[in-house]
């Protein structure tokens, strides 16, 4: 942790300077403390142009050093029941048209000849640092009031064991305080979070483009089927938030093991599917069934990373009523009609798009599963993948026609 420590007087000799020098050495393992002298600074003035170039440079150096530090220690003597004008002047430099102290952790310490130990000056200093132009985070409580220098210092070094112990306790508290203040999200970030809970403006960058988090969330809520995820450790970790789901899920179910979210009767079949995915024996299993009075298709897919490692199982569930009704109304040719017009053969299409045998085995097994109480439809595997190919052919025909 990098800290600055401001000697609160411009006097040639100061016990407050000696205290900061002691702290720099004593706490070298906890913090890198840079001591700053207010005696280097010109008296504060709003009329910056009145200063010489050298004076302006000193002010800039001082402000830069404080800006770069992660916290500031002020060591204040007491002049006339308040802080010295030289220290007040330095604080005015740090806060006039500047934000050097804003949201900066600050610690107040002080030494004085008498027993009062600059207590009143420290109280003024805390008030000054809390004013809106400073807005420093002053460590509350934790007073370091070192008085009676004749007894507490020897040969210019703090030597009184009780004072050293007190200083150690307070400095450790400050180091912890400064760490937590500095890791706080800014107020602006906080107010963003209030406006948009759970969603920030972050992007997910894919090889094929980027999505904001809110776009990604809304895509899952909009696609015409629902998605559930069981992760690689067989826990239910996510589902798409979609209105009128076929399977009604609750946030409280998240994190449950597969055995918790399936009835015992269905569990062996479910585990058989998941294990076949995990072992790489199959990639997809599908189940046509009736749910809530309409024809529904459930498809389980193995979720793998680009290297083929198993990441989990995703379950897609959606009503196929809309597709079937369009088909029945003649939207597409039947498989037989396609064969007659010299189109692709059903076998070739099926093999090319779904990876062959394992799905058939999966379907047969899944047909017996009735984990949600619906009757499994007694139909065969729907041969959907022919459709895109047929459309592709139409597109080809069109483009070749236009080429003529």
């Amino acid at each position, binding site marked *: 942790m990098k800290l600055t420590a401001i000697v609160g007087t*411009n*006097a*040639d*000799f100061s016990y407050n300077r000696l205290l900061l020098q002691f702290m720099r050495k004593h706490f070298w393992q906890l913090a890198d403390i840079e001591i700053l002298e207010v*005696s280097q600074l*010109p*008296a*504060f*003035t*709003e*009329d910056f142009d009145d200063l010489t170039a050298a004076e302006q440079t000193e002010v800039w150096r001082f402000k830069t050093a404080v800006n770069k530090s992660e916290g500031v220690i002020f060591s204040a003597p007491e*002049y*006339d*029941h*308040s*802080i*010295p*004008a*030289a220290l*007040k*002047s330095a*604080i*005015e430099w740090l*806060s*006039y048209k500047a934000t050097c102290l804003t949201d900066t952790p600050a610690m107040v310490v002080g030494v004085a000849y008498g027993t009062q130990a600059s207590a*009143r000056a420290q109280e*003024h200093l805390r*008030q*000054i640092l*809390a*004013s809106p*132009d*400073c807005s420093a985070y002053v460590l509350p409580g934790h007073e370091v009031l070192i008085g009676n220098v004749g007894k507490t210092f020897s040969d210019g070094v703090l030597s009184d064991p009780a004072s050293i112990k007190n200083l150690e306790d307070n400095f450790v508290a400050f180091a912890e305080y400064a760490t937590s203040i500095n890791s706080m999200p800014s107020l602006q970030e906080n107010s963003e979070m209030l406006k948009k809970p759970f969603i920030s403006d972050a992007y997910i960058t894919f090889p094929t483009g980027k999505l904001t988090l809110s776009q990604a969330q809304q895509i899952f809520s909009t696609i015409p089927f629902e998605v559930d995820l069981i992760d690689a450790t067989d826990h239910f970790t996510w589902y798409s938030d979609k209105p009128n789901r076929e399977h009604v899920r609750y946030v409280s179910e998240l994190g449950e093991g597969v055995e918790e979210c399936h009835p015992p009767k269905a569990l062996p079949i479910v585990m058989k599917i998941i294990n076949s995915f995990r072992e790489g024996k199959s990639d997809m299993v599908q189940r046509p069934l009736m749910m809530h009075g309409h024809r529904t298709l459930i498809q389980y897919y193995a979720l793998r990373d680009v290297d083929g490692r198993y990441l989990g199982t995703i379950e897609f569930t959606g009503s196929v009523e809309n597709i079937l009704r369009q088909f029945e109304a003649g939207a597409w040719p039947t498989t037989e009609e396609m064969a007659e017009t010299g189109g692709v053969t059903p076998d070739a299409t099926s093999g090319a798009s779904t990876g062959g045998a394992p799905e058939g085995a999966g379907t047969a097994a899944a047909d017996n599963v009735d984990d949600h109480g619906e009757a499994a439809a007694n139909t065969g595997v729907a041969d959907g993948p022919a459709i895109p190919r047929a459309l592709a052919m139409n597109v080809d025909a069109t483009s070749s026609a236009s080429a003529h």
Partner: protein
Amino acid sequence: MKILAIAGSSAKKSNNFKLLTFMKKHFTDHDITIESVRGIPLFNENFSGNMPAPVIELATEAEKADAVIIACPEYNHSVSSALKSTIEWLSYELHPLRGKPVMLVGASTYPQGSSRAQTHLRDILNSPGIDAIVFQGDEFLLGNAATAFDDDGAIAAAGTVTFLEKCVAQFAEFVQHFIDEGCSDCTAVENAVAERQEREKSVEKDGEKDEERAVTK
């Protein structure tokens, strides 16, 4: 009565200076002299040589006056460093505010009118070494100072002027007690300055002697 009025801001454009200028013009019964902390160097207890001329001048004025009025701006909820520096000068080797009746007024661009700075200033003026007798009557806090004055530099609101008149009248009555009891010794500043000059001379002589010794060696 003879009053020294100190404007507590070092800025070229100062509402507190403006306030005192108005008071000098308005309260013709009193002989008001206005000084500013602008030009007073930053206090340093290890200053060398004689005391800065502006400090001696201000201290002499204060000593001669029957009373002092300080117009206090507010910087960071406290007094300006320029005013604090001036008070440090007036409580180190010179103590011209000792036993002197002092009244606080203040102006600021915000509605509070330097209230927190005035509270700090009372703490400061009550500390040993200054020993001022701070008048504890009504508080004159001129807020929104940027719009408080008319084109002639007078406080525009009649009610505010009436209140200021009341404050000054109470203070004048308070000061009169001290005048009646007899003026304090007015040679303390002069003596302190002379004393320091003597000391500086002897330091110079010692320096010369050192040089002579170095030469003879």
